[in-house]
């Protein structure tokens, strides 16, 4: 890409990262087809936060929208990263699990309905601990059911990224779409540093974090299916393509032998460089999909 084109794109694009959860969800639907379910005016908020001195948000940081994507029925569930770090509580987790279950029910009735989950989250909301854990388990079960009928697409655009239990949910999705700014990982950098020391992972080293958890690395190592610019039109286009593509022949998380072998052959007696690791895990499919 020439510098001139990059400049023009940068000026003309509409950033997706700068949108809030509701705007992000709306932007993915075919124009004028979306409607929100259990929105802020329904006032289904967390009953636990106020007791702990935290102001609740009326949608509990989870936006559920129904509509059409590429002409097909779809549900988009977006987590608001700015509210409590996009964490999953009893209500936000319940909303996501219920929406996925309803999509499955529609598929069983013969109405093909895919799901897009927008994950900007650190995982379980600590103030609602066990209820959040239970909700994530329900979400993962719901994804496993739904993905048999229709694609479940995970979009992590940034800048919160997707960590903790919800990274496992992302791993179960039919397709994972990321931007260069997004991060995807089980344990966040600060958690690793806290548990294993700064020698293991320096959470202040942003270049290191993105070299390991960043969208570019995840895509290059075959753990994400598309790497898209932070541009609303391009991201919406990528989502439409994956919705049209339908259920993949084999889900990534079903390739147990492949990943078991890869991990078994990995020499853990020495420190791996992210660039070196990228060569080792580079998959044929991740190269083929590259635009």
């Amino acid at each position, binding site marked *: 890409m020439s510098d001139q084109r990059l400049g023009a794109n940068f000026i003309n694009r509409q950033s997706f990262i700068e949108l809030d959860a509701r705007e992000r969800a709306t932007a993915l639907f075919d124009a004028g087809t979306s409607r929100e379910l259990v929105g*802020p005016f329904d006032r289904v908020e967390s009953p636990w936060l106020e007791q702990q*001195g935290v102001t609740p948000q009326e949608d509990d940081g989870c936006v559920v929208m129904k509509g059409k994507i590429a002409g097909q029925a779809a549900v988009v569930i977006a987590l*608001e990263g700015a*509210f409590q770090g996009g964490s999953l509580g009893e209500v936000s987790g319940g909303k996501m699990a219920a929406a996925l279950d309803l999509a499955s029910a529609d598929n069983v009735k013969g109405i093909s309905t895919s799901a897009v989950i927008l994950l900007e989250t650190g995982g379980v909301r600590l103030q609602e601990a066990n209820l959040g854990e239970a909700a994530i388990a329900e979400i993962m079960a719901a994804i496993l059911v739904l993905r048999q009928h229709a694609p479940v697409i995970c979009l992590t655009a940034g800048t919160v990224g997707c960590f903790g239990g919800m990274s496992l949910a992302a791993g179960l999705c039919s397709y994972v779409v990321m931007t260069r700014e997004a991060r995807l990982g089980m344990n966040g950098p600060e958690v690793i540093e806290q548990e294993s020391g700064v020698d293991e992972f320096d959470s202040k080293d942003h270049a290191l974090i993105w070299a390991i958890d960043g969208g570019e690395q995840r895509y290059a190592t075959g753990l994400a299916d598309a790497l898209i610019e932070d541009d609303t039109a391009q991201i919406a286009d990528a989502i439409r393509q994956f919705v049209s593509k339908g259920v993949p022949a084999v889900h990534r998380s079903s390739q147990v032998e492949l990943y078991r072998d890869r991990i078994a052959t990995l020499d853990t007696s020495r420190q791996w460089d992210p660039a070196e690791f990228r060569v080792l895990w580079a998959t044929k499919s991740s190269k083929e999909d590259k635009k």
Partner: protein
Amino acid sequence: MEHIELDYPAKRKISKKAHTGVVGSGDLEVLLEPANGDSTHVSIRTSVDGFGKTWKAVLDRFFTTYDGAVRIQINDAGATPGNVQLRLAQAVEASER
């Protein structure tokens, strides 16, 4: 956590509701809904205690120019007075678009 309730007179009927903002650090969420009658009720929940006078001053000023009959709920996570004014203005604009 502090709850603040304020009432203001209103003259004009509003037909559309509006939602703006997010309960993120230094920001707030505003829910504006049409109300019956000739008064407006403002209900504030804030995680920062002890700023009742400031909230009243900010809302008093806002209602010197706004006369819609509405119910406003504010969920605040430590927004500055300027930010509160902007979010309120944004909600009004969205409700009259």
